[in-house]
């Protein structure tokens, strides 16, 4: 059943919020008082409730089943964290209240920072970035600031082909020329290929580790050393930190800067696309350049350094955002970390890796692995589409057919280095029974594809509120908002 838009059911006369307005409200707005109507539809509370509850039921969610999106780390979101973030002392405090009235909040940020630094083995962390990509930007800015401080801004950033799109976008934003590093046959970065491209003009390498093929870069330390040797920095994309927390520390691998997706690794929920949070851990060399604001601690308690004019600001490069970062995500992440403890986080990483390798073992004879080696994968397993060759079924068709079986598809067509990539990340939140069911379904589907049951795939999904949508039309003739005219013309049809 189609759910109408609020503009089609609401009315500007109806409201779901009673306001106790005085009889003669003051007006000192002068000439700028609004005269035109806005056109906002209102819904009574019961109508609003139904609209959004019904809409929600058109979504898939972790709470409904496995969400095996590679590189996205869709794990269980504990409700304890939702409860904690709604404590008035966290949810209902203003970023510009006097510091004396937010000592608990500053303590929380400081405590979370301590966990992040300890887990990564790096001495500093910039807490304010609002999301992973923002953290990347922050980390690369710190690198650029350090290079500027050395008087040598440099012009090149090395990025492996398999990188997330944010990596080259970030480097390009900062004015760097992006030089691509090809992958080896086995899906990892060849230290020789890096060395060939290194020079005194290279500012940094941006490496994802574990990489987007789900592999731990075995030569990561060799690469780090080579990078450092030419005076460049090692930026690590921390999207996949979930696989290694408690088993190794990026600081020990030679990383200079790494953002941490709190919404992936530490389970602050994805919320349909955000908000995220992307604190960046920094090495000794980059720490002095960490942006404002940050929390310091002295005998009087906790204090925020918010201005470049503050003596404690040192060489801070500036400010990424207003206020102090994603407090709501900090509370959730800390609750998650404290619940696991150091031992539990390590166990979570191990279970994530175990689950991915289990899926790999169960599917390797049915699906096709792009790399011909026995190296274990980390928290995600990459397949290519060669097992679909000649079936008339594409990776996309296969993904859509999974929807009809009640599963969210895996990540498809990423990373770009593999043809028809299918990247499966089960996370540690799946039970063995859940994985067995998932694997059995995928095997059944693969069999159906090989048996020439093409229609089941190309026509999929069938049991969803809408079928496959015309994305080309959406992009060619963009309709990005409701308008009364459009409504009228549709009604006339």
């Amino acid at each position, binding site marked *: 059943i189609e759910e109408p838009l609020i503009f089609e059911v609401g009315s500007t006369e109806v409201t779901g*919020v009673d306001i106790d307005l005085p009889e003669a409200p003051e007006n000192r707005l002068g000439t700028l008082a609004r005269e035109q109507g806005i056109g906002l539809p209102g819904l009574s509370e019961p109508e609003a409730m139904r609209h959004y509850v019904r809409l929600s039921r058109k979504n898939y969610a972790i709470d409904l089943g496995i969400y095996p999106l590679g590189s996205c780390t869709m794990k269980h979101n504990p409700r304890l964290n939702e409860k904690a973030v709604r404590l008035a002392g966290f949810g209902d405090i203003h970023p510009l209240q006097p510091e004396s009235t937010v000592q608990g909040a500053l303590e929380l940020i400081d405590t979370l920072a301590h966990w992040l630094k300890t887990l990564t083995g790096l001495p500093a962390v910039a807490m304010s970035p609002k999301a992973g*990509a923002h953290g990347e930007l922050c980390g690369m800015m710190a690198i650029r600031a350090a290079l500027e401080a050395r008087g040598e801004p440099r012009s090149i950033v090395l990025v492996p082909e398999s990188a997330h799109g944010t990596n080259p976008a970030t480097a390009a934003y900062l004015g760097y020329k992006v030089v691509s590093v090809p992958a080896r046959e086995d899906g990892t970065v060849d230290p020789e290929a890096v060395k060939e491209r290194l020079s005194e003009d290279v500012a940094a390498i941006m490496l994802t580790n574990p990489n987007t093929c789900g592999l731990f870069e075995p030569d990561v330390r060799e690469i780090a050393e080579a990078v450092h040797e030419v005076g460049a920095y090692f930026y690590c994309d921390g999207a996949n930190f979930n696989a290694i927390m408690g088993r190794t520390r990026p600081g020990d691998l030679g990383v200079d800067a790494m953002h941490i997706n709190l919404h992936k690794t530490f389970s602050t929920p994805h919320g349909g696309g955000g908000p995220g949070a992307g604190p960046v851990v920094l090495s000794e060399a980059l720490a002095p350049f960490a942006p404002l604001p940050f929390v310091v601690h002295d005998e009087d308690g906790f204090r925020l350094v918010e201005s470049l004019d503050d003596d404690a600001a040192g060489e801070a490069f500036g400010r990424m955002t207003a206020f102090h970062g994603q407090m709501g995500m900090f509370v959730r992440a800390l609750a998650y970390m404290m619940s696991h403890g150091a031992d*539990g986080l390590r166990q979570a990483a191990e279970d994530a890796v175990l689950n991915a390798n289990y899926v790999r073992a169960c599917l390797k004879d049915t699906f096709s692995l792009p790399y011909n080696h026995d190296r274990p994968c980390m928290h995600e397993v990459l397949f290519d589409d060669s097992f679909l060759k000649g079936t008339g079924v594409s990776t996309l068709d296969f993904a859509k057919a999974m929807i009809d079986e009640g599963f969210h598809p895996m990540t498809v067509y990423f990373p770009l280095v593999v043809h028809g990539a299918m990247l499966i990340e089960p996370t540690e939140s799946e039970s063995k029974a859940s994985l067995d069911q998932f694997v059995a379904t995928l095997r059944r589907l693969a069999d159906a594809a090989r048996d020439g049951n093409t229609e089941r795939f190309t026509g999929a999904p069938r049991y969803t509120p809408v079928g496959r949508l015309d994305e080309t039309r959406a992009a060619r003739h963009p309709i990005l908002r409701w308008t009364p005219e459009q409504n009228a013309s549709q009604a006339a049809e």
Partner: protein
Amino acid sequence: MRYLPLTEADRKAMLKRIGAKDIDALFVDVPPEARLDSSDRPVELPRRRSELEVERTLTRMAGRNVSAGAVPFFVGAGAYKHHVPATVDHLIQRSEFLTAYTPYQPEVSQGTLQYLFEFQTQVALLTGMEVANASMYDGSTGCGEAVLMAERVTKRRKAVLSGGLHPQYRAVVENLSHFGGSTVHALPPALNGEEDIVSAIDSETACVVVQTPNVYGSLTDLEPIARAAHENGALLIAVVTEVVSLGAVRSPGEMGADIVVAEGQSLGVGLSFGGPYVGLFATREKFLRQMPGRLAGETVDGEGKRGYVLTLSTREQHIRRERATSNICTNSGLCCLAFTIHLSLLGEKGFRDLARLNHHNACLLADRLSGVKGVEVLTPTFFNEFTIRTPKPGAEVVEALAQKGILGGVPVSRLEPTADAFGDLIVVASTEVNTDEDRDAYETALKEVLA
């Protein structure tokens, strides 16, 4: 561990299936010298704790903060205490909203996509613009992105910033511009638009950035600035940090803005010590393809049924990589949802009434405070926030009020530490949550502090 479903027996069986002797065998690629030993305390951090214990610890920490709802509260300057209907928080906690991913698979994400489409429409209506995106991280980063977008559109590299722009927004723009290699001309702090921003615009100017109500609460007529900008081939970027004001004052679009960025926290989101918030971003249709961020668009399925998809993603980093309009990836999805639910509950009527009540309460408060000896209200036209001058340094006054259990505003010295002439100013906000008792308490406490 309560979040981990695997039993020891499962783990053993799975390792066997994999053909690995133990879990360490799966981590062979980690360089030996970087491996953490396999004791159960691999790093110097506490061990796992029960939910009861974690909740207790966090509750204790939270208890060391003074929450806005617990005291007479008048702090604003870019974030505002409003009443959010219980329905909003209930709905955003629906599993299907809270625990969904970015809607890349539209057939199983119509819930998210449709509310984003509705959100975009509401933002366009509110701002008086033609199109809006599916949100930025917050108002300040949206402001930074708007400047970059103006530079792409005009192919110029200089931004002129009003002295009424929130200083932390200014800092964000300055930082981005510094690293992006463009120029910022920031005017000195100005309370009531006394600055001559028009003459700062020249043929090199990509954009002028003006906030209204500005950080001091003052309302600004954007029309003359828009005219000057357009005459010089520059864009006007309007910044709104209190979105509720749009229920009472003319929209930036109506006044000629080319890009509107706003902080949407006031609707649905809550204070949360500064984040997560939700950045609204709207512009004219002709600039659409230079707009950063996600967009939900309407289309049809194979049977002609209406549906929604993420669209125009060829602007975005995951397709265009180093040629993307922005490196932005995440949006502020769940906050968009809170915003759009709150606004559709309000509707035109509720939203306008809410704005009226905010303004009314601020007027009452201004009258009260201006009656306190030595206190002067400096902003003649305002929405729900104004600036006062007191006979003592603002930071001292605010701290003394806090000691008396009143959160009385933001000392300008915290925002503009080097603007010595502003050291005795305080920005004071008042919303629908304030009562007569709150105002009494503030007035009384302020008298005592200044006595």
